[in-house]
């Protein structure tokens, strides 16, 4: 029994016989691997921003159960009440970090609009028929001089912290917004933001009292699209910020330098004991490894993707690794190179020295595979999600509406795809499932983009352990 099922269906005895915890999630990462059933549903952000379809963005419920009659179909869409949100990342109200918190359930999705700064609270107690329960309007967010919500993590005990990339004007600095268990805004999470200006993703590792956040840019800089002039002006990020988790204070800045430009997704290993983690520097196309040695945090380049010459481009094309994730067993790091068109798998059993295990070349500007059946693979591999058992990797192809329109303009007409690969973790291999394709180009209102993916029962990019 896992909390992939509706939480109300779950008796407390289901957990107690194994690990004596009473809250949501799993006692340990290994317990998640053992206890989670294979995923049957996926929640995927679907969006119309930056297309000529005037319709609100939606949460897609995708059937990923191979035994189902509606396998690979979007079986439900929860439309947002307004247009223009740009749904992007989202998260649960509670995860394994609250597994000892009695009474909490993994019941609600917190779904922010990246452009609108509107925050939707969706009751997903019925896993197939989620319903919008509450909407926090942008004006309520702007009151805290914050905008552009991005990463949603629940924190132990039921509160929710959202990284906010801008101030109320879409300028710098950003910060963090805290919601209570009742989904009301409590205020700013941080007590002291030190020299932090830019924000993007964050991950916390409570046993080590640390949070690490990364940097994209001011919303006014990245919202309209990517302008190299902004990079030259220093308007894009290249730093990590180390925070005291308990005191909510900025402690240290790790400057990744020119090779660390636009550090996006931050992933600690899942073991609560671990002080190892990675961040993908998208523009520089390097993966940085960070760790704590002797009480000091440091970061160093661990994987370097070379730019490639393309006959139609004046300058070598950067790989643009826009998403990374760590398998629940902490054995593999996966990533996506959006412009090159590659999904990769690295062995991280020696965390400071990732070793390439396998990769798939598809989509993007260099992918060997550019279509499945008669469907062109618009865009490149982008947001990743891995099954808890580490045997199935899924991804979507949209990055951000304005950036999609700049690099893969055909996506606004054809929509995104969601694809899958099968993994053999024992042998370190990644194989494209050529029979799997969820086509977001086929939505009733018109072709849609697809972004982040989550499972009903927790996943490799959000669950944290204390």
């Amino acid at each position, binding site marked *: 029994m896992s909390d992939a099922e509706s939480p109300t269906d779950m008796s407390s005895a289901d957990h107690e016989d194994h690990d004596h915890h009473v809250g949501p999630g799993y006692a340990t990462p290994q317990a998640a691997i053992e206890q989670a059933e294979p995923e049957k549903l996926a929640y995927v952000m679907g969006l119309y921003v930056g297309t000529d379809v005037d319709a609100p963005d939606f949460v897609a419920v995708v059937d990923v159960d191979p035994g189902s009659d509606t396998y690979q179909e979007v079986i439900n869409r929860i439309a947002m009440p307004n247009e*223009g949100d740009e749904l992007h990342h989202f998260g649960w109200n509670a995860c394994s970090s609250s597994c000892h918190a009695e009474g909490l359930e993994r019941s609600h999705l917190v779904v922010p609009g990246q452009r609108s700064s509107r925050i939707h609270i969706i009751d997903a107690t019925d896993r197939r028929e989620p319903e919008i329960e509450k909407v926090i309007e942008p004006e309520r967010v702007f009151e805290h001089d914050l905008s*552009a919500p991005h990463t949603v993590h629940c924190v132990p005990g039921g509160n929710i912290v959202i990284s906010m990339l801008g101030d109320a004007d*879409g300028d710098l600095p950003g910060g963090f917004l805290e919601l209570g268990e009742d989904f009301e805004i409590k205020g700013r999470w941080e007590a002291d933001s030190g020299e932090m200006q830019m924000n993007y993703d964050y991950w916390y590792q409570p046993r080590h009292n640390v949070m690490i956040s990364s940097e994209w840019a001011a919303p006014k800089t990245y919202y309209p699209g*990517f302008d190299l002039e902004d990079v030259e002006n220093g308007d894009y990020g290249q730093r990590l910020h180390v925070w005291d988790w308990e005191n909510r204070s900025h402690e240290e800045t790790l400057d990744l330098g020119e090779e660390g430009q636009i550090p996006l997704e931050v992933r600690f290993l899942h073991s609560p004991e671990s002080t190892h983690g990675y961040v993908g520097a998208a523009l520089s196309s390097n993966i940085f490894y960070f760790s704590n040695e002797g009480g000091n945090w440091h970061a160093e380049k661990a994987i370097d993707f070379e730019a490639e010459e393309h006959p*139609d481009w004046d300058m070598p094309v950067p790989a643009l690794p826009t998403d990374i994730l760590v398998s629940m067993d902490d054995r593999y790091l996966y990533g996506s190179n959006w412009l090159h068109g590659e999904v990769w798998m690295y062995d991280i059993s020696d965390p400071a020295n990732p070793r390439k295990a396998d990769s798939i070349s598809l989509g993007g500007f260099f992918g060997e595979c550019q279509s499945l059946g008669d469907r062109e693979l618009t865009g490149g591999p982008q947001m990743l999600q891995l099954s808890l058992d580490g045997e199935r990797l899924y991804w979507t192809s949209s990055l951000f509406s*304005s950036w999609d329109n700049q690099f893969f*303009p055909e996506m606004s007409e054809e929509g995104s795809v969601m694809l899958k690969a099968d993994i053999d973790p024992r042998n370190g291999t990644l194989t494209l499932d050529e029979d799997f394709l969820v086509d977001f180009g086929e939505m009733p209102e018109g072709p849609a983009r697809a972004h982040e993916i989550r499972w009903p029962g927790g996943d490799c990019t959000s669950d944290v352990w204390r």
Partner: protein
Amino acid sequence: MSYTVELIRNGISNTIPVRPEQTVLAAAEDVDRSLPFGCRTGACGTCTGRVLAGELEHRRPPRALKTKHLDAGYVLLCIAEPRADSRVTVGKDVVAELVENPWK
């Protein structure tokens, strides 16, 4: 009093009345004419239009637009009020003109 603002999107033209203290986006919503938009604060550029004739004035700083965009006649309809009868093109293709693929 109102000005008339002609909005051209994908070749389709609609003329709507816009009061001088009203944004073009709000006026379009009043008459059920869809325009693309995102942040509604002038930061994101989703509502960018290009002024072909007339005059519009931003009611708050148009942060999504650089000086080169303002000089070329781009305008953010979520924060733009009319100062004369105007003609504006709008839509995702107008937004896409703000940036190009820098490597290509």
